[in-house]
């Protein structure tokens, strides 16, 4: 379970985030929806523990995973090593199984630069789910994919979430993505930004 209790977040003298409190239970997928520039990335970085300079408190599981908008792979390591370097204690068999699960079983020896963008994103998904995370954060992980590819990615992600049951926080500006994956949708708006339950117009 992820418990977020942010009181405020400033960049210099500008307050970007106001009072933001919510929880994501295990197995639940919460989408935070908002236009670009509203502070979604800031919120995500705080929840992920990347940014610790804020007022408030976030409780998250030890075992977290993240999927970024960019695949964020180690281009200088092979596809298989990209999994093994990040999860050194899980072993080669688990890494092979994770590649198999996302349909990259034959690509283990390639470098990420030899994969298509869709394959790179599937590798990022494999990396995230391989460690059986209790908490998962997804940052616009499906933007700039063509509709057919996005659909495949949604289906794959949904079944991976169903298998692993992490507390998932999904940050996006795309209502279709939120509706496809989330069990609950919140909107981030205002300045400083605060959360409210999303009401479909």
């Amino acid at each position, binding site marked *: 379970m992820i418990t977020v209790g942010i009181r405020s977040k400033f960049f210099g003298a500008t307050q970007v985030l106001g009072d933001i409190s919510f929880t994501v239970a295990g197995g639940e997928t919460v989408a935070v929806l908002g236009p670009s520039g509203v502070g979604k990335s800031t919120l995500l*970085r705080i929840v992920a*523990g990347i940014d610790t300079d804020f007022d408030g408190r976030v409780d998250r599981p030890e075992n977290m995973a*993240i999927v970024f908008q960019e695949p*964020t792979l180690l281009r*200088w*390591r092979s596809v298989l090593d990209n999994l093994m*370097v*990040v999860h*050194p204690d899980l072993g080669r068999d688990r890494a092979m199984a994770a590649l198999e699960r996302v349909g990259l079983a034959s690509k283990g020896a390639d470098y990420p*630069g030899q994969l298509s963008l869709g394959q790179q994103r599937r590798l990022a998904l494999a990396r995230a789910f391989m460690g059986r995370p209790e908490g998962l954060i997804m940052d616009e992980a499906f933007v700039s994919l063509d509709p057919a590819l996005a659909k495949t990615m949604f289906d794959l992600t949904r079944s991976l979430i169903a298998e692993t049951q992490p507390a998932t926080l999904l940050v996006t500006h795309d209502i279709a993505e939120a509706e496809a994956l989330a069990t609950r949708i919140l909107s981030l708006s205002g300045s400083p930004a605060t959360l409210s339950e999303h009401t479909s117009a």
Partner: protein
Amino acid sequence: MTDPRLTPILSIAGLFGLWIVAAALTGDPQVLPQPWGLAAPLVQELRSGELIRHLGATLLRVVWAFGLAMGLGLALGLAMGRLPRLNAWLDPWLVIFLNLPALVLIVLCYLWIGLTETAAILAVTLNKIPNVTTVIREGARALDPQLDAMAHVYRMGRLARLRHIVLPQMAPFITAAARSGVAVIWKIVLVVEFLGRSSGVGFQIHLYFQLFDVAMVLVYALSFICVMLAVEWLLLQPWERRVRRWRSA
């Protein structure tokens, strides 16, 4: 002329041609001997074992100074590139040391520490650290923050991050620093030997300079150039190809 591999060979042949013409015009082997005039002194130095002994002494100093300068410069450059406050404090020092003439550092090291091996290697190392630091700092500033965030969330260990995330991104900068490092260090090592050591190529050049023996000076200089070319072709270039492999895949 169509084979690009021929170009460097022809280029070097041209240099030898220039040497032969210049030596013929000079007409005095005391001032500039013909290339083949170096064969006899070379064989003599090889037979006596002097050439190998002095080449070895110089090479050992180069290896020490190179290792220390690369290690310390890498650590300092990474720290300065990633910590802006540390950089603000140390940057003026860096500028001062970058502009300190090599000779001044060498003389000061000898004066303060004495004419010892430690002073010699320290002088060369101190001369090279600022350059390495400057190059590495540029690389450290260009590190991808997104990869840092990824490593943080997945709780990768310090060593794993250094090995799999930081150093591979730094590889082009490390190679650049190493390449210019080797070239500069061996030249400074010769000066250090010239001024205060009793072994090494620099010492021998000093000796034959006092004896006005141009042929011997050239024998030692060219021998060491050959050693450094071997280092470049047998160590640096294969290593560079290895770390760049993923780019061409």
